[in-house]
């Protein structure tokens, strides 16, 4: 039967309904600030939004969006290749290219379509793609469509990448290497300096997804490659407007002029309507803020360290280093669901992540930190986790 393959998901949904827990698609009924809202009837601190710099609620971004609606209307109603390229779209492409210090940029309607579209198009039959095993679903979706030979290297393991490049022989020179800046589930930062060194030794092209690191890492906020000092080695950067920039959309930038030709070959760019002008306008304003207010990054990292140190002090299994994403790994599905609800009851919304969305067989309580969180809110989050331990829901020595 057509629907048989969905039965295990239907069973899981039924289990959640029976338990009265709704962690997936939790509905926000009111947004009180970038870090507080009413979710499922309860006032909660938002600690699972990817709103790293809190710019979705910035009055300047809101005004830019409002002005754009007045001037351009609510949508473009067409593809970038038809009627959907307004001067604002081109201006954002100029802005993002200038931000990265390159000549070429493409703006996409979503971050997913940017990454998926570029991965599906850059390499084709006869080419090789070497991707990090823990790559985002949009990357896997893209490489699957590409027709290229697709090989995984062990997560954040430059030695394994080098081994696989060696095995490719002459084909290594036409290989697309794909890595991310900050990995979205556990918040770990890729060893890009060592990955770039492998590329220098064997050749190939380096593609870095800065979705979770743009705005968070690097001297001017360009991301993990800037922080690692290897931007010159990166052939293609992709990223999103839906995290640090507080809107929705995505981009690819490159020093290769061929990107301007590739634009006309990307289905995910051609066959969808372009972003609403209000989104483009708020994104341009948010990018201006990132460039002129580096103190936002300082605040983000202050909060990230505060949460990471707090959860680590409780003995909870968090990632290897502090990061704007702080995930607590747990082995038991039922206990993780119970903990998610207990955190909600304590006034904290986090993300519940189950395999295969998590990178292992473990379950995650995934927290994302914002520059807009107050220290009091971070302390409240830590206190909520402490209550998971004191009530016996979590035994730190037996989580993961």
């Amino acid at each position, binding site marked *: 039967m057509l629907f048989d393959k969905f039965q295990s998901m239907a069973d899981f949904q039924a289990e959640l309904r029976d338990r009265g827990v709704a962690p997936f698609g939790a509905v926000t009924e009111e947004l009180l600030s970038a870090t507080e809202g009413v979710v499922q009837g309860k006032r909660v601190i938002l600690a699972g939004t990817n709103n790293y710099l809190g710019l979705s609620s910035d009055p300047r971004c809101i005004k830019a969006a409002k002005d754009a609606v007045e001037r351009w209307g609510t949508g473009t109603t067409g593809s970038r290749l038809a009627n959907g390229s307004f001067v604002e779209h081109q201006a954002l492409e100029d802005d993002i290219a200038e931000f990265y210090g390159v000549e070429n940029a493409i703006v996409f309607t979503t971050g997913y379509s940017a990454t998926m579209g570029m991965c599906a198009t850059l390499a084709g039959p006869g080419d090789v793609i070497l991707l990090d*095993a823990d790559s985002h679903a949009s990357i896997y979706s893209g*490489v*699957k469509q590409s027709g290229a*030979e*697709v*090989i*995984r290297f*062990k997560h954040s393991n430059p030695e394994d990448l080098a*081994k*696989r490049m060696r*095995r*490719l022989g002459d084909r290594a020179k036409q290989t697309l290497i794909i890595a991310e800046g900050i990995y979205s589930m556990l918040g770990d930062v890729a060893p890009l300096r060592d990955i770039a060194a492998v590329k220098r030794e064997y050749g190939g092209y380096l593609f870095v997804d800065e979705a979770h690191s743009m705005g968070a890492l690097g001297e001017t906020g360009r991301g993990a490659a800037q922080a690692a000092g290897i931007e010159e080695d990166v052939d293609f950067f992709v990223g999103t407007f839906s995290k640090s920039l507080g809107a929705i959309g995505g981009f690819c930038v490159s020093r290769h002029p061929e990107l301007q030709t590739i634009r006309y070959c990307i289905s995910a760019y051609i066959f969808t309507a372009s972003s609403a002008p209000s989104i483009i306008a708020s994104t341009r304003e948010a990018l201006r803020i990132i460039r002129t207010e580096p103190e936002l990054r300082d605040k983000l990292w202050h909060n990230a360290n505060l949460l990471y140190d707090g959860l680590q002090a409780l003995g909870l299994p968090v990632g290897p280093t502090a990061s704007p994403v702080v995930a607590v790994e747990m082995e038991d599905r039922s206990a993780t669901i119970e903990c998610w609800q207990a955190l909600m009851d304590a006034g904290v919304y986090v993300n519940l992540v189950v*395999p*295969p969305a998590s990178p*292992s*067989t473990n379950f995650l309580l995934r927290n994302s930190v914002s520059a807009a969180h107050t220290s009091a809110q971070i302390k409240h989050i830590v206190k909520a986790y402490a209550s998971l331990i004191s009530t016996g829901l979590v035994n730190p020595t037996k989580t993961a």
Partner: protein
Amino acid sequence: MTEYQEYLTFLYSALESKNKKNLTLSETTSLVADIGLSSLEVMEFIEKIEDHFDISIPLNILPDVNTIGDLATKVKEINL
């Protein structure tokens, strides 16, 4: 050049720890339907094979692999 049978022997041995149902493994044993490997376990198993034979196995072959015999055939092709 390694013979098909040698690949099979290695695969049987590498799967032993995952053979929770104590099946008698054969060429026709399905990795997912019979042994019950999850998608993550399949990838871990692939890494084990790659390390052992010093090869890279493209993800593209996976849709054509159902049984241990299918996998042995593919690994033999890659390692030619």
